């Protein structure tokens, strides 16, 4: 049995290890366009801030592939998958035939498509190579604009502030993390962000970048205001890496559609991680949600099923933890936009900076936001994940600790 896995990060590596346990003899080939062993992508913003040293990002050693008996094709790009021939074709000319294929190619950062994007001094942050490029690109820079106030944008803005740059952070909507936080939690976040000295602009979006000598010099906002900047970082979301699936009918840039066994429409092809569009636990429909633990879970299920198992993916439970210089927000389940028909129990302790927002549907917890006192978040996530009937906290603070 020949197994091929495109992608050697969170989902790909979890799938490969699970697959090896199911099939100790089969040939497992892992292809990655990155030349290094597995590293933790979420740590890149911590690398940027200087909180961790570069040698701490590795999750596996250099002889990882050899130890597990995987055939590794590192630093190789996939140009085409041909389901009819059951082949994966690489840019180097090499062909990898497969009996079962897993696509765990992840996603790449989006850029908004505005004039001046191709100037020097424009960055995204997703890979180790991006970080290296950013580090060298920050030399001589004084002012940086970070576009997009999601989790990555917030962490990046904080990291750059710590390094001594003047940072402006642009949020498209009325608040950062618009899909995760209600107005109260967002206000607390914005207070914290202001205390950190980050210049956050809401309802702000770049319409053009202007340069001088090929390098970015300023950014024009939707309001018409001009922001001087020698570096611009876009963190406005990611799009699935599915270019090599052109012509197969499987490659949706919104994510490869999969069933509950993480199989695509082609029974020999599976997908897991940021590149796919899985079912969700608490809501109908399928859409991508990009977080490392979900990619690992999906990788494990896909790997088992490739190896002959019949595991069902229970459905993705959105979850996010943001920690900015000790200020913490944990949110999960359905966001405020999706809990309009739910019973909401919200408690705010302004003096301590604690906020708790719980969304209930038919006596079960389906949405959670915790600001400040986040340490017991896992208990709430278990309630959501298992669909346990959860009584509303009658005496706030007492029963829930």
């Amino acid at each position, binding site marked *: 049995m020949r197994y091929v896995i495109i992608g050697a990060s969170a989902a790909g590596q979890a799938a490969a290890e699970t697959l090896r346990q199911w099939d100790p003899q089969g040939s497992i080939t892992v292809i990655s366009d990155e030349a290094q062993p597995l590293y933790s992508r979420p740590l890149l913003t911590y690398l940027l801030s200087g909180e961790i040293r570069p040698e701490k990002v590795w999750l596996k050693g250099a002889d990882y592939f050899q130890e597990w008996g995987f055939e590794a094709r590192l630093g190789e790009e996939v140009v085409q998958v041909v389901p009819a021939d059951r082949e994966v074709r690489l840019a180097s000319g090499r062909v990898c035939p497969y009996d079962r294929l897993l696509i765990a190619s992840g996603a790449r950062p989006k850029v908004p498509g505005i004039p001046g994007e191709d100037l020097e001094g424009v960055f995204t942050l997703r890979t180790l190579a991006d970080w290296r490029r950013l580090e060298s690109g920050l030399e001589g820079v004084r002012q940086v604009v970070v576009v997009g106030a999601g989790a990555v944008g917030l962490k990046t803005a904080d990291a750059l502030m710590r390094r001594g740059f003047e940072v402006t952070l642009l949020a498209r909507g009325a608040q950062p993390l618009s899909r995760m936080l209600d107005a109260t939690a967002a206000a607390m976040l914005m207070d914290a962000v202001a205390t950190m000295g980050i210049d956050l602009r809401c309802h702000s979006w770049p319409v053009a970048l202007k340069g001088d000598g090929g390098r970015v010099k300023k950014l024009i906002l939707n309001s018409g205001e001009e922001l001087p900047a020698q570096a611009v970082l876009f963190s406005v979301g990611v799009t699935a890496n599915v270019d090599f699936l052109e012509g197969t009918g499987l490659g949706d840039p919104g994510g490869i559609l999969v069933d509950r066994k993480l199989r695509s429409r082609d029974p020999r092809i599976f997908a897991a991680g940021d590149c796919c569009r899985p079912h969700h636990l608490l809501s109908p429909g399928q859409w991508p949600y990009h977080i490392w633990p979900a990619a690992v879970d999906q990788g494990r299920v896909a790997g088992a099923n490739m190896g002959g198992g019949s595991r069902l993916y229970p459905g993705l439970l959105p979850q996010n933890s943001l920690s900015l210089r000790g200020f913490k927000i944990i949110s999960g389940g359905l966001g405020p936009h999706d809990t309009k028909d739910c019973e909401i129990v919200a408690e705010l302790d302004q003096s301590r900076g604690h906020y708790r927002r719980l969304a209930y549907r038919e006596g079960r917890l389906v949405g959670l936001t915790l600001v400040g006192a986040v*340490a017991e978040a896992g*208990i709430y996530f278990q309630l959501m994940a298992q669909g346990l009937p959860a009584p509303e906290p009658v005496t706030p603070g007492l029963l829930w*600790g």
Partner: protein
Amino acid sequence: MKTVIVRPERCVGCWQCRLACAVEHSQTKDLAAALGEEVRPRPRLRIYPGRQHLAFPNKCRHCEPAPCQAVCIAGAIHRTPRGTVDIDPGKCINCAMCAMACPFGVLTYASLYKAPDHRAVALKCDQCPEREAQGRVPACVEACKVGALTYGEWQETQEDKGRVLAQAVFASLQSPRETEPSLPDNLRVWRLLS
């Protein structure tokens, strides 16, 4: 692996275990001196108040597999040779992913004297490695006066409890039903099981 066994029905909520835990995890390991330490030591277990006199001690169970270890993006959580789950303060980046993953909510985040620059890191029960190396029981177990926290192999404890329960059931089936005084639940259960 020996572990801390919790009998919540015995807990009276005195918090001596929390005090002992904090002192054990201080720099000086002395209560008076610990109060004055630059980085205040923290207890790694919580006692939740419940209704009537029931209190619930909650601490890390050193799960196998450990969800916190699986989700740690910094690779700071590992299993020690003796089987406990440990957080390396030198690697922890205080991101709180472990709090999201732990089904029991046993994590806490605070400054630690052992962490670089005394920075805030994830803290939880480490089953007192220094005490165990000296052949002593964990600090919380030593502090508990009511036997709510004991130290032993869980399989042995399970068998003991099973035996006692079976005897109690057998005994209650033998004797005619008597009217008993109305006691709080925890005291009634305590009498039955001890």
